[in-house]
């Protein structure tokens, strides 16, 4: 039997492969952090970011008030969290259900806030298109 069996060196991996694996592990950690979500839905609510390392879970009403979350990228998470700072201050040590509901509604409004410029833009475009068409028709069809 072999005598040199105590600690034979393993064939090392190339540095590139080690880096690739480390990245894969970090990505796996990030996916676990985001929870069991269908990979098709792993995307920021506002932009095209799909990398789980950049995605985070945003608590719509704030951690204190509700568990509901949405997936957003770090940038948008920072923006939403900034808006959350303007929500009403805590009233009770243990939040009242109405308080939870109020914060949830505030949170939902926050979600829509980054979209407000888009809504305004669409509204302008539509009215402008209607205005441009005004010579060709009598208005409502």
């Amino acid at each position: 039997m072999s005598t040199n069996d105590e600690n034979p060196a393993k064939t090392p991996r190339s540095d590139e492969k080690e880096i690739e694996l480390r990245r894969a592990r970090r990505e796996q950690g990030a996916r676990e952090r985001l929870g069991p979500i269908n990979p098709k839905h792993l995307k920021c609510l506002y932009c095209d970011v799909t990398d789980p390392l950049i995605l985070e879970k945003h608590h719509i009403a704030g951690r204190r008030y509700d568990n509901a979350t949405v997936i957003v990228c770090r940038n948008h998470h920072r923006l939403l969290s900034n808006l959350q700072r303007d929500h009403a201050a805590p009233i009770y040590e243990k939040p009242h259900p109405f308080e939870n509901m109020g914060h949830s509604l505030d949170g939902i409004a926050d979600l829509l806030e980054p979209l407000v410029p888009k809504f305004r833009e669409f509204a302008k475009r539509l009215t402008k298109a209607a205005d441009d068409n005004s010579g060709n028709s009598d208005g409502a069809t």
Partner: protein
Amino acid sequence: MTASQNWSPEPIEYDLLRMSLRAYTPTGSKLSGWNQAQLSPSEWTLIFDTETTVDAVQKLRFGIYQVRKGQELFEAGIFVNFKMFSEWELTIIRTFARSNDYRLMRVADFVEDVFFGIGYECLATIVGFNLPFDISRLAIGHAISRATPKKKAQVSPKLPTPNLSKALKGGFSFKLSPHKYRPRVQIRHLSSTVALIRFTTRAGKSAGRGMRRRKLKPLPRPGYFVDVHTLAAGLTSQHGSLASLAKFLDTDHRKLETESHGGPIDDNYLVYARQDVQVTWECYCKLLEKFVAHNFTNALPNRIFSEASVGKAYFEEMNIRPWRLLQPQFPDSLTGIMMSTYSGGRAEVHHRRIISQVVYCDFLSMYPSACTLMGLWQFVISNGLKRRDSTKEARKSLADISLQDLQRPDTWKQLATLVQVSPDNDVFPIRADYSGNGQDTIGRNYLGPGQVLWFTLADCIASKLSTGRAPKILEAITFTPDGIQNDLRSVDIAGNPEYRIDPYKNDFYCRVIDQRSEVKRRLKNAAISHRVALEGAQLTLKILANATSYGNFVELNVEDLGRRENRNCFGYLGMPTAVSVNKSEEPGKYFHPLIATLITGAARLMLAMTERLIADQGLDYAFCDTDSMAIAKPDGMDDATFFAKVSNIRGWFDALNPYAVKGPILKAEDANFALRDGKRLDQIEPLYCFAISAKRHALFNLTGDGQIVIRKASAHGLGHLLPPYREHEAPVSIPAPVVPLAEIGVERWHYDLWHQIIRAALDGHPDQVDLDFHPNLNKPAASRYAATTPALLDWFKVHNADLAYSDQVGPFNFLLAFQVEPTAIYEFPDYEDSIAETMLSNPKEIGWPKPIARFSRDAGSAADNCFDRETGKPIPAGVLKTYKDVLGSYHLRPEQKFLNGNFQDKGITVRRHVKPIEIRQIGKESNRWQERPLLNSNKAAEIDYGVSNESQTELINLVREVCEIVGQRELSKEIGISRQTLSKIMQGQLRPIPPELAALVTKAAVTIRSRANTENAKIAILISALDTEIQIIGLSEFASRLKIDPSNLQKIAVRKRPLSHEMQVALDAYFEGNYKGRARAAPFG
């Protein structure tokens, strides 16, 4: 003789038997284990395979792995147990690794760097063929897995966890790494193809500070294990080896052959091992393609355990919500009644051990057909069950119903009814311990009066068809679907829009069978390029029809509780009985006992109808099995008449064909038709049957020169034995099979055995079968054994006690088990002394030697290295039972559920008249059935809920009655318990009576009562004979001949004095001895 002719209006004697009925014991848990969210695996895949020594320990020598990112090979390597090889062999391995660009490492490095480093940390899919064996080779320790960790983990409510924990309890928990931060791997073997595998939650801090502050734990990482063997069984019904699977899936590479297992390493062996991993990967890819073709939204390949999993996935795809979820308030008492009516398919032999000419027929897709005829799809997609009392209606319809009514499909729609009957020698499926060995079997027998029980209406109709009398219905409940679920979705089978099923418009079962018929029709004329796709579709549809029409509705997963818990058991009485259980039955997702019992009831009715039609045509049947019946030709009938009559019977069922393609629903099997050059002709050829017992039969033709051509045979009772010889070693004295063995359904040695059994019957000596047809039958008979459960591994408790872990026989090791022939031990005096010494040293623990040997396909050579698994002492091969010993009574196996079914009996079996002396409530009968032949005990696997309160009262009354006859002392001795315990039972202080004790008490009481009845009958006959003798020869003469006082005799004659034992002996001697030969003198002779 037919069943109806068997019936006797005044049964002479009932068999008093312990009867068993299924019961329902709610676990109280919610819909656990259902729709649990799971992280989908990453794009990484780890495929590995291990090679081991071939001794009993099966120690890991080396293994080969591949890591793939997507389809691309990321790296490959070889991990080696360096201690196992010489320097020269290591040089070969190093050269191999270098030339193949493989990483070379120690086993521990593989575990740390690859198995955990990639498999666990990157959530790779870990793929193997028979993964439990390979994973257990990597282990450095193991324990029995528990249900929950010691400290109950509070898991984040936002992160639902796969609840595999309970399901894995009672399996093995393997330690692969010495590091505490590495999780263990839990494996629980469920069947030969299925094992649940997962990583446990690792110890130590695994959450960040924020989560710890909120007392949350991260999502456990159960891993993503895919056993190709399991996935293949689920998706393609292939249960064979990797070689046969690769052939079936037509992979680019095929498994290589080698004889080098355990021998010195050479390049060929390393290439063989490398190819194994490549073939496993290719099989996995092919199976994944098949899986993806199903287009499931939520199902993942690691959750496909069987065909039933595919069926469930389709139900989920259609968004069908489970009945238990929609109707959680449904009374448990009714569920218990439903379960009590449930019995499986009917399998019995009628012509036992005689040769009959038959036409073998089976029903087209029996269970799907039953579902369609009864409209059970509406129950599957309904919001729940509505029920109504239908006693009067059921009585009337049962009284009026005739065979012709059952020819109308409308009649079947009204069979969703359960009825409570007061039996009066009606024919019902009776699950009882007919053989007295504690093993229940189901026999369709006459049920005597006394016990009110529930059955399906279909069973009552079947009884009426058999006896001509309608069973007396006390109560009936008819069930109807309560509305239809919203939001159901259409589904494309195998992702093909051509095979779309709309759950609202289509009857699922009917549509699937129609689609399959259409595919099969197209397949006949298809171009070769289309054949593969059509074959695949045909197979998928077949699997789907079978997977969704039965098993899921009666899915109960047994969990070992580890301790006794008090539960309520609901059964035939409709009332709860408090029971103490150590096993729990967790209903599966689509558990629906009503549908399950109606399906099997309808299948039994189909067979009863066939039996009735057979009798009406003046024919008989040789055997039947679930969906098939061998119709037998009576003596003196010519073939043409026989075939015409069978054709009439088959044609009778055409009206019941619910499918688009009209045609026979009762089909004549291929075995009935003549063969030419291996091809089936349309011409019927006389087919003969030799049946021994239920599921043990063979069908054959006879050539002009008397040669036997076996067409079908069963391997029932032979499957556990290793083949004594391979196909190419078959005896030349037995003609080779004309029909391919795969079509016959057995291996070559099974075929040879059946040939000899049939030959003996044809030659007029069916009891003496010539088993000298192959020299290997004189070798020890070996059974395959794998230590797949802790109970089976316990075989090696003593053997392993003082060995290092790496030298122990461990979980999932394959070995061979043998049996000792006690009489042969005396031929080996040295060995006899040795075991006598061992047995004396610890008589309670150690009985006969328990021989075991390392696994080898050549059982004979393996037996030479046989040893006692408890003492480790070698056992001479000469003391082992040979194949001839084991197979010696194969052809005599009794069919105890019927009369005339004992070992030597042959001819027509006769239904028993049964009266239940006690009704036992039981759980799943097939629990751990694969273990049972090896454990030689059913106790560990049985789920016994004991007897109901009423039955317990009856039992106590029986004990009191018997006690009056023989007294407490004798009764307690007969049972084997103390008089104090017996006294407690009689006074009702020991309630509930533990099931094991109840069984002992019942057996003893029945034996004593039966003995007492025999004694009483004998005394009655003696006194009657005594009266006659006094009338003939006078009192004085008779007293003088008996040499007793006439006044004493006078008192006995006028019943003033009981017949003493001495007097009985004297009368016995008088009638038997002194007056032998006189007609009147031997009334009881």
